[in-house]
């Protein structure tokens, strides 16, 4: 069902496989997320400094390409450590929006406030960030 929707060109970055598998499995297990996935147009980079892994996700409405490094000028850049990036997938979606008032959400807020998690472009591109959170959430 998700064949060809997620193209991983960052094969030298093991993290990219996890990202691709998570996205594919999520879309297969929760087909309603496809509607959101089909609406995402934008570029998101994820920079995991502790493991020196950087990938860029290029969304083009129903398709995403994962590339190694930072490609072009991403709309959003997520900078954090590998143990914290998994927490972003645990954000609950309520009424179609990310919910930040439970344990997982509050943890992410705390990490943003403390600088452990940086999301550049979150104020300029809230729609992309919201849609990204929705499709990546495993909850």
């Amino acid at each position: 069902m998700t064949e060809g929707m997620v193209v991983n060109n960052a094969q030298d970055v093991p993290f990219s496989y996890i990202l691709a598998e998570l996205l594919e499995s999520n879309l297969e297990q929760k087909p309603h997320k496809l509607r959101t996935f089909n609406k995402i147009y934008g570029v998101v980079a994820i920079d995991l400094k502790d493991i020196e892994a950087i990938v860029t996700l290029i969304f083009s409405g129903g398709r995403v390409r994962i590339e190694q490094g930072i490609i072009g000028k991403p709309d959003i850049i997520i900078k954090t450590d590998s143990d914290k990036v998994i927490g972003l997938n645990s954000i609950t979606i309520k009424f179609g929006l990310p919910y930040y008032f439970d344990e997982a959400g509050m943890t992410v807020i705390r990490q943003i406030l403390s600088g452990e998690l940086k999301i550049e472009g979150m104020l300029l591109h809230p729609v992309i960030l919201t849609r990204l959170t929705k499709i990546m959430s495993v909850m």
Partner: protein
Amino acid sequence: MGVRALTQEWMDAYKAAIQADPEYKDIAKNWEGSVALVVLPDPAKGIPETVYLFQDYWHGDVGEFVVCDKDKAESAKFVMTGEYARWKQIARKELDATKALLQGKLKMKGDLPYVVRNIKTVNKVIDILGAFETIWPDEV
């Protein structure tokens, strides 16, 4: 006196440590399914052949914990594979398991969203892995 790693005695000790943990039952109440740990051979470190370990977890309870063959390991709901040195580092808390997975030092077969949803259970079980005295084959 510890137990020699990757033996049935060690699996028994691991199971007992999980059962004795006061927090485990509550943290793992939603987890269902078996996990296999596959330790790749490293003859120089006393691991001449691949070691397969099968563990059964069910809603906070623990079932079968055995050293097994390849077929049984591959029948597990989740199969995690890594080099001996990596498993040892994880058990000793020198390497974070999530980091190892994201770095490709551990490979996992199974439902990844399920694992992420239950990451606290995974972290707890891995935390307990380092909680009892172990004799590692390359240190004998």
